């Protein structure tokens, strides 16, 4: 049984850990877990995601982050991710810019147990050199092929719709990079809208499945993606996001204590 409280689960994340966050922009993000990380004042986290928003911004704004490995960090219609942006501009956070495609390739390599993935030639993009992506000679002829090295997160942090108390879980609807990061990571922490009996998970054989192996903690967190969406249960809270996008530094500090869990 790996069910525990949110603060117990967040305590597993050591300063300096490389964590990968579920969802995309405001869709099924592990928002409650991320707030708990901030309340526990984590430092030097390395955060990995294809497209981050509230989650990455909040951690950057509250000084928890050393490095962001991502292809995009923004709030879509609510404008730029102010705290992320400021932290990067001021050099407090290193933005290891990628493209979503190379983040996926790095996770694929880790998930497949191989040291690197060949990718399409995107070498005219400036970050290819900055990230140190290297070419190899195609052993079957035809010239050089660009590659991306594997990145194996210490923890994949996933917010899911349903899990059982052992950490088996289901994802409904789009799963973005969540399955890939679960396969790639050394460990998994789940927050779930509801903890249900294993038999209930079993009935839905076509939904995406995270087996309990590597799951170190599962926490029942209603509205765990708030202010993001967790369909089919709730939509994004656009009012809260509009408010969040305009918080000053002091207000951001209180935000994580006001918005619970």
């Amino acid at each position, binding site marked *: 049984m790996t069910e525990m409280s949110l603060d117990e689960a967040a305590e597993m994340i050591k300063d300096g850990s490389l964590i990968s966050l579920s969802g995309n922009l405001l*869709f099924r993000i592990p928002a409650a877990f991320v707030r708990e990380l901030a309340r526990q004042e984590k430092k030097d986290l390395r955060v990995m995601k294809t497209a981050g928003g509230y989650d990455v911004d909040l951690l950057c704004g509250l000084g928890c982050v050393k490095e962001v490995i991502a292809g995009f960090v923004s709030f879509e219609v609510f404008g730029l991710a102010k705290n992320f942006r400021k932290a990067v501009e001021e050099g407090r956070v290193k933005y290891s*810019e990628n*493209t979503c*495609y*190379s983040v996926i390739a790095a996770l694929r390599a880790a998930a497949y147990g191989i040291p690197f993935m060949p990718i399409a030639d995107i070498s*005219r*993009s400036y970050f290819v050199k900055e990230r140190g992506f290297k070419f190899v000679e195609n052993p079957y002829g035809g010239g050089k092929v660009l590659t991306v090295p594997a990145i194996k997160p210490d923890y994949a942090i996933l917010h899911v719709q349903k899990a059982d108390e052992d950490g088996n879980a289901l994802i409904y*609807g*789009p799963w973005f990079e969540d399955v890939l990061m679960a396969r790639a990571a050394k460990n998994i922490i789940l927050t779930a809208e509801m903890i249900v009996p294993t038999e209930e998970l079993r009935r839905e054989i076509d939904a995406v499945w995270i087996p309990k192996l590597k799951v170190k903690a599962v926490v029942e967190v209603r509205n765990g993606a708030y202010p993001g969406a967790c369909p089919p249960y709730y*939509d994004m809270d656009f009012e809260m996001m509009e408010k969040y996008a305009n918080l000053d530094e002091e207000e951001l500090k209180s935000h994580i204590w006001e918005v619970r869990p």
Partner: protein
Amino acid sequence: MNLLERANYMISAMARLLKDADSAFMGVASFLPFLAIAVTKRLYNPDLVWYSIVGFNPNPYRMPMSTVHPLIAEYCDAKLQLAEIFDISARGELDVVFLAGAQIDSRGYLNNSHIYINGKRLQFPGGAGGALLHATAKRPIVWQGKHDPRIFVREAQRITAAGKPYRVFTPLCIFRLDRELGRLVTDSIHPWSSYEEIKEKTGFEVNDAPTTPEPSDEEIEIIQELDPKGIRQLVLQ
């Protein structure tokens, strides 16, 4: 002409470009592409396969405030692993992709990374999937909600995504890439703008061009139906 009407011109022109497309992908914060694809699927090209971040063929009854919104996922033909979009494009099977550019240069390259102004870094969100998609999709369509010389530059300080755009949409005009010249040329000018204005607001050499055709009543009707509250104008503000 108000912003809603201007948006309609851009959406209409985008939609008409998709008449012969077999697939089109739209990413995040893509209100104009969303409406353009919806219009073309209803009026011109029902067979177009529409890829979004959350699934194949969104069939929503209205446009939500996010193009990664659960409403879109709910009405999709099927969900889609985001990775697959990149695979499709890497295989050379993606026809049209819509890409936004914080900075767009005369070659059609995009900078969505950052710029330095007087030694001070100005950070953009990052290019999302653009690096691959611009390089490998058959017909990248680039768009921007503003038109000024800091956005439309001769050469971007950083290249986030290099590719050959099929068209570049701005709130003043439409560019296309002249492959022989290797640079953008004006393809049409929106009726509320002029050659002079574009020349003044563009960081590279431009030419005169015909006026962008007006949207049809049918197109406007569908746009209005899907976006009754006028979300589409947000990107032009």
